[in-house]
């Protein structure tokens, strides 16, 4: 990754960025750039170092080494100035449980020194945006997980940020709640808000990110658009075979030559191929009788498996 002059216009610019805790390396010399207006993702399993990276970008954690610039400024010396222009959705909701829903937005706006009348107006608009206006005067605690997440997103928008940081925006939400969050994020993206998010959901990354890096064990193992990563690290299609329990060892050699690559997982076997149906026919020709077969398109999950030999969600 060469440093080009265009790097100076990047909203976030990181080279050799590292974070160490005692004798644990949480982030190990990663390089990345985030440009204005794009949706950029960190995809990786638990413990990969995503949150540690987000906290350094958010100026609430000091890098152990490497260079980092955010909005053209140095997080170590310009933390307050940078944070003034960030919107942050942390991994765990940090809503003010002592205050009501609308007061959460109002006081948060005040932390950004936004005048009271503007703060009140924005709180109202944002509650509408995240569809919580009918809960404005309620306590925060009884809200559902999805509602709290939406309120946290609304709170992150209260200062009209140049850069929105979302750490696992939909982890723990039911599918309906996730889709509502995705829909709001998609709208923000359309409005030109620069978004950086982390996820261990490949569908989330595929839907929302223009560009992403795959993180594993504190390192970036690949980067590119979701499409280009899939093209580079996976085949067009995947044939999934499920066998009766523990049939996998008996497969030894029998799948050879059918697919470009074979991945044997505890519960299923993945055959990477350009033509899934043809591969399925070949499997049957060899006398193998899987319990089920499924032909699907490759996803980022397959990219991750290829790169690390492990599933994203264990």
């Amino acid at each position, binding site marked *: 990754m060469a440093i080009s002059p265009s790097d100076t216009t990047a909203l976030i610019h990181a080279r050799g960025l590292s974070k160490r805790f005692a004798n644990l390396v949480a982030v190990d010399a990663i390089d990345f750039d985030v440009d204005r207006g794009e949706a950029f993702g960190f995809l990786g399993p638990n413990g990969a170092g995503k949150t540690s990276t987000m906290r350094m970008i958010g100026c609430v*954690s000091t890098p152990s080494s490497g260079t980092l610039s955010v909005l053209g400024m140095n997080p170590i010396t310009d933390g*307050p100035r940078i944070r003034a222009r*960030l919107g942050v959705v*942390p991994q765990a909701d*940090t809503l003010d*449980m002592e205050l009501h829903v609308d007061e959460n937005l109002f006081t948060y706006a005040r*932390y950004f*020194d936004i005048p009271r009348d503007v703060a009140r107006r924005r709180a109202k608009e944002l509650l509408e945006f995240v569809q919580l206006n009918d809960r404005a005067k309620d306590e925060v605690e009884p809200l559902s997980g999805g509602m709290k997440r939406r309120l946290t997103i609304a709170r992150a928008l209260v200062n009209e940020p140049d850069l929105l940081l979302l750490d696992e925006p939909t982890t723990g939400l039911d599918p309906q709640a996730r889709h509502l969050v995705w829909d709001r994020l998609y709208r923000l993206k359309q409005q030109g808000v620069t978004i950086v998010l982390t996820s261990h959901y490949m569908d989330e990354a595929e839907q929302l990110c223009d560009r992403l890096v795959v993180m594993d064990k504190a390192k970036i193992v690949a980067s590119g658009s979701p499409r280009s990563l899939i093209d580079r690290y996976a085949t067009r299609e995947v044939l999934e075979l499920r066998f009766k329990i523990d049939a996998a060892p008996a497969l030894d050699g029998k799948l050879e030559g059918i697919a470009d690559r074979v991945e044997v997982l505890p519960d299923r076997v993945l055959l990477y191929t350009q033509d899934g149906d043809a591969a399925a026919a070949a499997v049957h020709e060899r006398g193998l009788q899987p319990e089920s077969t499924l032909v699907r398109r490759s996803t980022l999950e397959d990219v991750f498996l290829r790169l690390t030999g492990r599933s994203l969600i264990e």
Partner: protein
Amino acid sequence: MIAILAGRRPAQVPAARRASHLVERNAILYRREWSLIVSGFFEPLLYLLAIGYGVGSLVGSAVTLNGHPIPYAAFVAPALMATSAMNGAVYETAFNFFYKLKYVKLYDAVLATPLGVADVALGEIVWALIRGTLYALGFLIVMAGLGLIASPWAILALPAAMLIGFTFAAVGTAASTFVRTWQDFDLVLIVMIPLFLFSATFYPITLYPGALQLVVQLTPLYHGVDLLRSLTTGSIGPGLVGDLVYLVVLGGAALLLAAVRLQRLLLK
């Protein structure tokens, strides 16, 4: 060069303003729960009635200050005023601050905004000192009503009580950052009760033997008591400077310690 750089970067909100937004947050909360604040005011008032007047009627005018006998209630009242400033500040910073730090996780959210750890520490200390000052103000009004103010210097008792509030708020905040569980707060009470009883609150410090006098002079409430008693009784002397310096230095050091501790706890 610096000017050019400064011109390019967005303006920064002054620290005092940043801290004030946290004060505002607390005020919004207490708009609903004002009864919590009011309740803390009555404790020293009850002591004034029970001891200042009750015990005072037994003691008569046995207490002298700088050689002049003064009514016992007038002797005890400023000490209780200092105690009320301490109570307000410590209740707020010890219990409420700890709750916000550990359970509400308020500062995790706040530190993602332009506010930093020093702003958080300053904001909470100012809020606590406001609470302490409100108690002291209420107490001062009661003292005036009961005729327990003997000197025009008493006008300065309110800012003096604010200083006491600041010192104890800063100490309470710093102490809170070391607290792990609610049980640890028993320690806070174990410290506060003897401070209340033995800081020359109910009798002159001269009643103690010399060595013990020195020990008492090392503790913070003694200086608060001495400061307010001097002002409300009009016995102004050089000792006041010592009281002021002690309270300012202790408060400032505790504020710094609180900020450093918050940095360690929250900005890993």
